[in-house]
């Protein structure tokens, strides 16, 4: 059987009438998947939850969502609920967090059969094993979610979709927090599902993933579907301005940053024969590197290979097992700053940015002018200062983090996967800013990423730690 979902002028409002999504129309179905792209808050996940029927009660849908001609919006909440699993399955984002931590994945798959297909438990167990085989997880049937890598967890949730036997598959940012290698794996799995004849809808800000999924691409911005078309046409001949900027934001599209030609700057950090291992697994050994002012060093490698650890050792946050770290001209500690992977986590949750910067000024006697200057440089509007971190989009917050660091006139910046959680546009913006600041203020930047393309575009030096890292797909370091 095949199924088709058609959205007609779908609008989503809050009870007080604010429009979050306006007049979105598109269709997807068996053999022709769709991939909705857009930054956080563009409304793409609202659309997905509208299709799923899992929007919070505070939100109202207008228009129509037709499943094989039947308008789902006309159905009662209970009736929508009845479709979950049977017709719709949802691949959660960060699946390792979406699986019950205290239950083996096998029984988490198995439990679906009695619930949906009135199967006996023994029957369920055997069928669950088959599902796990189909995604190549039979060896891990008895393991718990915390023992799985992101990719394995994602496959487990696909196995659950299989178990449910639903024809419609909604994937919610399936590559969030995964490194490139895993992203490709996930993309492969999704295509496989498509080939199995499922109607697949993927929402993501990961253009790479979008490219790998054949079918339609919809680009959303501020709740409007700005562009809709075949994947390759959208990605190679974008019409809408925003789509253009999106495509342009792809690292592959960047023009290589002006390699610094002038003579090497003075060393800021010098590490000799560093060695570090977790348990019996050696991350790296006999590693020498020197960070020089005005230079960009990129540490490359899949998750868990120890590139973040390396940075933390240089910052003095972790002790190395072997080797030494020298800081010429012994500057105060705060001259070595760090930009975090997950911006909100780097800010004090209940403190407004205004207070945060206020305290920073007091602590280091910074004059207001320089703050405003940096805000201008980074294109940050002071209006946001009244907000708390969780109320600011990742891109902006990351730029505040950079501003915060730069205010201390650092000698060295360590950017730990600083852009992996941002949509392409924000990512490009942040990277551009960093590069600009490095050149301008002549500071040393160490950037950790798993994106080769990005690395090659901006790096003066590249350290590839994957060579030292052991197995490629083990637990993703959050």
């Amino acid at each position, binding site marked *: 059987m095949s199924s088709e979902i058609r959205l007609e002028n779908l609008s989503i409002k809050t009870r007080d009438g604010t429009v979050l999504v306006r007049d979105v129309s598109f269709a997807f179905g068996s053999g022709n998947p769709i991939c909705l792209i857009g930054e956080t808050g563009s409304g793409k996940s609202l659309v997905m939850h509208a299709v799923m029927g899992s929007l919070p009660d505070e939100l109202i849908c207008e228009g129509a969502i037709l499943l094989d001609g039947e308008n789902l919006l006309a159905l009662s909440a209970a009736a929508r609920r009845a479709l*979950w699993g049977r017709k719709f399955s949802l691949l959660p984002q960060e699946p390792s967090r979406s699986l019950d931590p*205290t239950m083996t994945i096998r029984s988490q798959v198995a439990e679906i059969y009695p619930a949906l297909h009135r199967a006996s438990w023994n029957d369920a167990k055997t069928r669950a094993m088959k599902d796990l085989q189909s995604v190549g997880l039979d060896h891990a049937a008895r393991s718990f979610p915390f023992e799985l890598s992101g990719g394995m967890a994602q496959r487990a949730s696909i196995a659950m979709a299989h178990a449910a036997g639903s024809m419609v598959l909604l994937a919610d940012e399936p590559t969030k927090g995964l490194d490139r290698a895993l992203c490709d794996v996930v993309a492969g799995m999704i295509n496989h599902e498509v080939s199995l004849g499922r109607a697949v809808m993927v929402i993501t800000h990961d253009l790479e993933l979008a490219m790998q999924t054949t079918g339609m691409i919809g680009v959303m911005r501020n709740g409007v579907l700005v562009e809709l078309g075949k994947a390759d046409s959208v990605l190679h001949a974008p019409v809408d301005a925003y789509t253009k900027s999106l495509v342009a934001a792809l690292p592959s599209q960047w023009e290589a940053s002006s390699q610094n030609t002038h003579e090497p700057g003075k060393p800021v950090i010098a590490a000799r024969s560093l060695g570090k291992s977790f348990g019996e697994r050696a991350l790296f050994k006999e590693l020498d590197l020197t960070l020089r002012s005005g230079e960009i060093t990129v540490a490359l490698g899949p998750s868990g290979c120890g590139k973040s650890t390396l940075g933390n050792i240089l910052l003095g946050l972790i002790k190395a097992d072997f080797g030494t770290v020298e800081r010429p001209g012994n500057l105060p500690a705060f001259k070595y700053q760090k930009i975090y992977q997950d911006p909100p986590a780097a800010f004090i949750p209940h403190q407004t940015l205004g207070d945060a910067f206020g305290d920073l000024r007091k602590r280091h006697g910074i004059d207001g002018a320089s703050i405003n200057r940096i805000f201008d440089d980074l294109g940050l509007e002071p209006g946001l200062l009244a907000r708390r971190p969780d109320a600011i989009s990742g891109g902006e917050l990351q730029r505040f983090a950079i501003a915060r660091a730069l205010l201390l006139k650092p000698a060295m910046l360590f950017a730990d996967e600083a852009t992996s959680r941002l949509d392409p546009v924000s990512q490009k913006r942040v990277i551009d800013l960093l590069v600009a600041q490095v050149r301008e203020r002549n500071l040393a930047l160490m950037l950790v990423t798993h994106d080769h393309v990005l690395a090659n575009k901006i790096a003066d030096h590249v350290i590839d730690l994957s060579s030292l890292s052991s197995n490629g797909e083990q637990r993703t370091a959050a």
Partner: protein
Amino acid sequence: MKQLIATRLFQLVAVVLIVGSISFALMYFLPGDPALRIAAGRYGPDMMDNAISDMVRAELGLDQPVLFRFLAWMGDLIRFDLGHSLVSGAPVLHEIALQLGYTLWLAALAFVLALVIGPLVGAIAGLFPGSIFDRVSLLVAVALRAVPPFVLAIVFMMVFGVTLRWFPTAGFGGWSNMVLPSLTLALGLAAMSSRVMRDAMSEVAASPYFAHGRYKGLSDRTVVMRHGIRNASLPVVTYLGLQMVYLVEGVVVVESIFAFPGIGHALVHAIIARDVPMVQGTALAMGGLFVLLNIIVDLMCLRLDPRLGRRAA
């Protein structure tokens, strides 16, 4: 696992030593001459006089220097010789062995009741945070904690014993006698654990895996049963471990009100008669009981949370 039990045992040993020292200190510092207290305890206030107490002093060697007596005291303790009750003159160990039985039954029943009531109420409240049920359960929980256990006990006696005549008001020996005392204890426990469960449950209910369970197509009931209760009960079980204190001490009052011959009852009377060896013995029994119950709780946690299990393994 090993390490876990080792810690608990260390706890037990420390408890024994400290209880021993405190008890000795009590014996020494309590107002009045210990020999007199012993005599009074043995022969009743009307009978007792200083003549008898002199005899007792000689008999128990209470005229030796303090340090000597302390060492002797601890020595006996380590050989697990708890001495004789000042009141009945029977060996403390023997008396406790008898009383512990009753208390264990009471404690066990109360524990089970609390495990049924508290988490159940808490789970419902947690699934509907802010609902009427949630608010009412909060009020009741606070009320139960604001009323001394013995008041609760009296109320139960009046309602279930005198008015309804469902259960015997006091006494011991049969299941029916256990109901009111254990209920009195259980409600106090349940009051708190229900709140813990409530918070745990509302957290779990907001967790992505709970949502995913529903997206998988499981009914609310199934999700709550398979993914809700189990995860939410983790903090509750740990918490109950702490609350054993409440249970063990609740026993004290409840038993003496319901004329139930457990260690709690014994402790009360030991205290009133300043029967220090019994105080020490019962205190040790309670300490031991607490540690034991906590070992059980630890094991339950291991069972409930595979993460702990794998780490311990």
